[in-house]
């Protein structure tokens, strides 16, 4: 996973709540067996509309998505995170993320930032008025900064440490091999098995 320390970029204001992962990446894209090449599928249905915010010339190259509440609901597809990253987004800001999407994003180095809806409103107003306005998401300081906006955000220390260092979860867990083996030795014999012992 790529480390995330701090990022500054232009924004895409997405004034929509309840953006589900079927909208972020429709199911027919899920037939791919790689983690890349999803950028053209990002918000595929909405992008057919020329007035959709992502299609605006001044939004090209933007790296910060400022979304409405309940972003990433529905399907567990990690492809939604890959599509956002493949497209070029480094961070997503919303007042509330769906649990599975949030977990997926943090495991891939896409920083999902929870801010109060009032702050999201301010970021929308700022970036709609000035498409060149930049937003800084600083994970070291746990702070989002933009013109006229300074807002602290929360992220648990463990997730922050993993993101700042770009650490791979599996190698961290495999350090606990002794604990896993010890737990396995205590499992009752009635627990289900998919294969004969």
């Amino acid at each position, binding site marked *: 996973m790529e480390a995330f320390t701090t990022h500054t970029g232009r924004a895409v204001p997405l004034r929509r709540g309840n953006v589900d992962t079927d909208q972020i990446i429709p199911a027919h894209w899920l037939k791919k067996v790689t983690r890349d090449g999803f950028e053209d599928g990002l918000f595929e249905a909405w992008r057919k509309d020329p007035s959709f915010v992502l299609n605006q010339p001044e939004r090209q190259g933007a790296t910060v998505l400022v979304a409405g509440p309940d972003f990433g609901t529905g399907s567990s597809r990690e492809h939604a995170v890959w599509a956002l990253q493949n497209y070029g987004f480094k961070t997503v800001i919303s007042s509330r993320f769906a649990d599975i999407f949030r977990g997926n994003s943090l495991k891939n180095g896409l920083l999902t930032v929870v801010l109060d809806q009032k702050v999201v409103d301010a970021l929308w107003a700022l970036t709609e008025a000035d498409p060149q306005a930049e937003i800084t998401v600083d994970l070291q300081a746990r702070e989002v900064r933009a013109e006229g906006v300074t807002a602290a955000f929360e992220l648990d220390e463990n997730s922050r440490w993993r993101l700042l260092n770009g650490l791979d979860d599996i190698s961290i867990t495999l350090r606990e091999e002794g604990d896993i083996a010890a737990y396995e030795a205590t499992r009752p014999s009635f627990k289900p098995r*998919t*294969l004969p012992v």
Partner: protein
Amino acid sequence: MARTLAEKVWDDHVVRRAEGEPDLLFIDLHLLHEVTSPQAFDGLRKSGRAVRRLDLTIATEDHNTPTLDIDKPIADPVSRAQLETLRKNCADFGVRLHPLGDVEQGVVHVVGPQLGLTQPGTTVVCGDSHTSTHGAFGALAFGIGTSQVEHVLATQTLPLARPKTMAITVDGELPDGVTAKDLILAIIAKIGTGGGQGYILEYRGEAIEKLSMEARMTICNMSIEAGARAGMIAPDETTFAYLKGRPHAPEGEDWDAAVAYWKTLRTDEGAEFDAEVVIDAAGLSPFVTWGTNPGQGAPLSAAVPDPATYDDASERLAAEKALEYMGLDAGQPLRSIKVDTVFVGSCTNGRIEDLRAAAEILRSRKVADGVRMLVVPGSARVGLQAVSEGLDQVFKEAGAEWRHAGCSMCLGMNPDQLAPGERSASTSNRNFEGRQGKGGRTHLVSPQVAAATAVTGHLASPADLAADVPTPAGV
């Protein structure tokens, strides 16, 4: 200290707990399918890792599988490649696989319970959000992303922060003609698509206790549509009776030991939930969705709501956009909505009781002219059971299409899709824009409402058909 059901199951799976870190949780059962696993197996290959517990891992094919001509090569080369990738990965790593054509193939959340692999007090994960289904057995079951799939394959554990708990108590009895699907749609409409966010839900109360295992699965299945991490129901005699004798259920002394443990899996008297919701079952009636998220629903007897009456600005905007997408007018009676397609199936409502309920309504009736009805069993075994009961004949005689098992039109990854602008009554779980096909419009309904809708051609409940029933001769 008094604990909730979720806390008990969680505590029993903690491999490692340390201050300031997520708990490391042991996973009892890992279900795999073709869509969310290829990149995980790739990751294992790249790092030279093996599957740690092949005996706790099982795979099947469901999302991409066609429901017609399953003995022929899959027409879509991309779908075929994904299924072939799963077959290769399972062969290379030694994972048990039930491929298309196998008697145990089917929607992964129908297959696990049917084999008796889903058991009370277990942790179950799958790269699919509807893994919450398995919580009906008192298992802690949740959907995970592909990075976590790889993590479980490699370590049989997951680092997780413990969610909060929410009790959803359903008092009283469901009135006649009101099903588990109506209940869960009403619950989601009440608490909202984000209402369960950060919580494990425990469904409890008289109405829940009276539900069959399959109905409980319908309830827990849609926990994710309320934003919850998982949904659970305490195991009881209904659960034990369902499991007894299934291929992977414990036997002999193991059965006795298991039941003794399972009986401890109840929320203790005095245990505290972080949130509580109470629903009165007696006040419920058949429930359908009108919008583009599962929380946008109303009783079938109601009308399409007027967005102007919403106080919350973002909800008003969402309702306006939903009506526009759905092609509906505020104030239009829900019963007046005409459909083109009826879909009965999915991990929500593709089990034998669902097919029986739909068949019962269609017996000696016809699907309305111009309406296409697809009946897709949740698994090959459910299909066989339906055939042995003659349900396939009932569907065919009514004019419905009887298909092979899979996810099918629930998400339209296979050829079973809505055309742009087409409208469905669907027993599945998501009415998102384009979910069942680009531009498709979905109304979520119970199997009973689906069948009655197929007969009338517009959203209807079986009660609306009463007048159609032919009077028996001599009366």
